[in-house]
C-alpha cells in the first residue's frame, strides 16, 4: 500500500506545536507554486505506522541471514554507530573551520593511514561516495596519468568476462573501449588471451581478486607483469576485499589503483541505496591525480588538501568531503578491529564459506569449481536439479525466503548456469550456516516431491511471486493522482 492510498483530501498534518500561519510575502510571485504540492494527507502517526510497517516487511541483516554473494552483508556493529553519533561529529558543519574540526580530520587521517596499511597502497583518498564513484575516480586517474605523459593513444581497457558489470560501465564512462578477456576452465584469467590482447592501445586492466567466481586469481603477479610491460596499469575492484583483508595486499600484487567498498568490507550500513563510501588507494605514480579533498597532517595539526596542493587531481566528487558519517563508522570499525582483527575478518569469512561449501557438497549439491578452495564466497550450480525437476535457481531463491533466509545472489556470474553465489560473511554463527544448508536440502526434497509447489514460492511473505518480466517490460515507477 502506498502512503498516498492512506491519504484523505483536506486532512492536514501539522506539528503538535501551535503555530501561526504566516503570510508569504518575500518570495517573488513568479517563483510561487500555482497549485498545492501533491503530498499524502496523513497524520503524523499514520506516517510513522506506514513506514515502520514497511520496514518490518523487509529482510535486513538485523533480522535475517543475508548471504547475498558479492555484497558482503555483514553485521553493522552498534558501536560504530554509537561513536559516529557523538555530538561533536554529528553537529559538525561541513563548512566549519579546520581548527574547529581537528577531531574529525584526525579520524579521517587515521582512516586513510589504516586503509593504506591494509591494502599496501601509497596514498588513499576518502572522497568517492560509493563503489561506482570509486571506480570512476580510479579509471579517471589512469586516464589522467597516461595523458600527463602525452601517452594519449591508449584507448582500450581490458576486463575479464567474470568481472562485475560496473567495470565495463566505468571504463566506457571514462571514454575507453572495453575488451573482454575470457576465463579458463579453472576460473582463472586466460593468460594466452591476455597476452594477445595487450598492446600499445592498452590503458589498463580491471580485475577483481578474488574474482566473482569465488576463487583466487592465482597468477596475479604474472598478469601484472604482462599488463605493465605493455604500458598499461592495473585496477583492483575491491568488491571482494573481505576475503583477503589483512592477509594479502593488492599493492603487493602489483595493482596501481584500488577502490574499497567500506559499506561491504568495513561494515557500514548497506542496502536500501546506501549511502556508501568508495575510497581509492594508489601506487606512487598515481598520487598526484587522487581526488580531493584529502587530509594531511602537519606537525600535530590536520588540514584538507585542495586544488592548491594537488593541481593535477582528477577533481572533486562531492560538494564537501565524501560521506562523512559513513567514513566515521568505517574508522571506528577499523579501530575496533585493529590490524589483528582485520586478519580475523578474512580468516573467518573464508572459513565460513568453505564450511558451507563442504556441507552442501556432502549433501550432494554441485559446485561450479569443485576442485578450487572457496574464497569468502562460492558458487553452487543447480543445473542438474533444474534439468531433473524443472525447479530452477530462482525457485530455490524464492523458497528460501519462506524459510527466513534472504536468497543468495542468483544468475551471477552469468558464466555459470543456474547458479547461486553464496557469501555468508564472518559474522554468522555455525548454527545459522547449518540451518541454511538444511533448508537447501529440504527445498530439494520438496522440488522432487512437488515441483509446482516450489515454483509458486514464496507463500509466507507480504507479497507473493512477482512477475519480474512484466515489471521489466512495462516499467512504471511513477504514481500520480490520475493513476487511480
Amino acid at each position, binding site marked *: 500500500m502506498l502512503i498516498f492510498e492512506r491519504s484523505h483530501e483536506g486532512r492536514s498534518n501539522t506539528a503538535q506545536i501551535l503555530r501561526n500561519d504566516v503570510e508569504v510575502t518575500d518570495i517573488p510571485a513568479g517563483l510561487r507554486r500555482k497549485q498545492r504540492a501533491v503530498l499524502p494527507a496523513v497524520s503524523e502517526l499514520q506516517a510513522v505506522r506506514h513506514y515502520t510497517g514497511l520496514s518490518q516487511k523487509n529482510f535486513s541483516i538485523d533480522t535475517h541471514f543475508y548471504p547475498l554473494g558479492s555484497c558482503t552483508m555483514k553485521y553493522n556493529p552498534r558501536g560504530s554507530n554509537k561513536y559516529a553519533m557523538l555530538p561533536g561529529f554529528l553537529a559538525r558543519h561541513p563548512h566549519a573551520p579546520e581548527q574547529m574540526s581537528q577531531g574529525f580530520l584526525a579520524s579521517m587521517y587515521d582512516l586513510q593511514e589504516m586503509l593504506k596499511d591494509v591494502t599496501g597502497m601509497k596514498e588513499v583518498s576518502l572522497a568517492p561516495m560509493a563503489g561506482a564513484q570509486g571506480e570512476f575516480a580510479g579509471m579517471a586517474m589512469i586516464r589522467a596519468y597516461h595523458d600527463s605523459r602525452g601517452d594519449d593513444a591508449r584507448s582500450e581497457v581490458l576486463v575479464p568476462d567474470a568481472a562485475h*558489470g560496473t567495470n565495463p560501465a566505468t571504463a566506457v564512462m571514462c571514454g575507453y573501449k572495453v575488451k573482454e578477456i575470457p576465463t579458463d576452465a579453472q576460473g582463472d584469467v586466460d593468460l594466452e588471451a591476455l597476452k594477445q590482447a595487450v598492446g600499445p592501445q592498452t590503458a589498463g586492466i580491471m580485475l577483481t581478486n578474488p574474482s566473482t567466481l569465488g576463487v583466487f586469481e592465482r597468477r596475479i603477479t604474472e598478469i601484472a607483469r604482462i599488463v605493465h610491460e605493455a604500458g598499461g596499469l592495473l585496477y583492483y575492484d575491491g568488491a571482494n576485499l573481505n576475503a583477503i583483508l589483512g592477509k594479502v595486499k593488492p599493492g603487493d600484487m602489483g595493482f596501481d589503483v584500488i577502490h574499497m567498498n567500506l559499506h561491504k568490507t568495513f561494515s557500514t550500513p548497506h542496502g536500501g541505496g546506501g549511502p556508501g563510501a568508495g575510497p581509492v588507494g594508489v601506487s606512487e605514480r598515481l598520487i598526484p591525480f587522487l581526488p580531493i579533498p584529502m587530509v594531511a597532517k602537519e606537525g600535530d595539526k590536520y588540514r584538507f588538501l585542495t586544488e592548491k596542493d594537488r593541481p593535477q587531481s582528477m577533481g572533486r566528487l562531492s560538494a564537501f568531503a565524501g560521506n562523512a558519517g559513513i567514513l566515521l563508522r568505517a574508522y571506528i570499525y577499523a579501530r575496533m578491529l585493529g590490524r589483528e582483527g582485520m586478519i580475523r575478518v578474512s580468516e573467518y569469512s573464508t572459513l565460513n564459506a568453505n564450511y558451507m561449501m563442504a556441507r552442501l557438497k556432502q549433501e550432494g549439491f554441485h559446485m561450479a569449481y569443485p576442485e578450487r578452495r572457496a574464497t569468502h564466497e562460492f558458487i553452487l550450480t543447480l*543445473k542438474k536439479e533444474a534439468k531433473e525437476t524443472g525447479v530452477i535457481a530462482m525457485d530455490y531463491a524464492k523458497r528460501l525466503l519462506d524459510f527466513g533466509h534472504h536468497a543468495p545472489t542468483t*544468475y*551471477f556470474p*552469468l558464466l555459470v*548456469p543456474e547458479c547461486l553465489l553464496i557469501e555468508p560473511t564472518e559474522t554468522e554463527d555455525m548454527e545459522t550456516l547449518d540451518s541454511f544448508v538444511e533448508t537447501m536440502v529440504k527445498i530439494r526434497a520438496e522440488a522432487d516431491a512437488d515441483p509446482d509447489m516450489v515454483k509458486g514460492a514464496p507463500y509466507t511473505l507480504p507479497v507473493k511471486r512477482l512477475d*519480474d*518480466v512484466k515489471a*521489466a*517490460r512495462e516499467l512504471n515507477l511513477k504514481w500520480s493522482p490520475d493513476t487511480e
Partner: protein
Amino acid sequence: MSNVPTDLKYTKSHEWVKDNGDGTVTVGVTDHAQELLGDMVFVEVPESGRELSAGEDCAVVESVKAASDVYSPVSGEVVEGNEELADAPETVNSDAYGEGWMFKLKLADSGELGGLMDAAAYEELVASES
C-alpha cells in the same frame, strides 16, 4: 535439446547467420542463447548504414537475468535492423530463427561465411557447454 536448423551458419557467441543468396545475410541469436538468457525485456539492434566488422559488438539483448552483447558474425553494412523487437522483445524467445531476427547485413566479403560453424559443429559446442 535446443533447435539448431541445418540451413544456417553459427558462431561461438551464439549468433545464427542466414545466407539470403543476394549478397546479404540475416543475423539473430540462437534458440540456445534465448533459452539461456530467459525472458527478453529489451532488445537494441544496429541502425541501417552502420559498417560492422566481424566480431564487433553491435546489438544488445537484455533479459531478466542479464544484458548480453550480440556480435556481428561477419563484416558488412547494416541494411536493416528489426525495429519490431523494440516493442516486442519476447519475439526473440518465441521465434529466434524467424520473426526474432535482429539485423540484415550486406556482406563485405562472402568468403567470411566459410569461417562460420555449420549446424553439426554448433550442436557440438552447445553440448560441450552444457
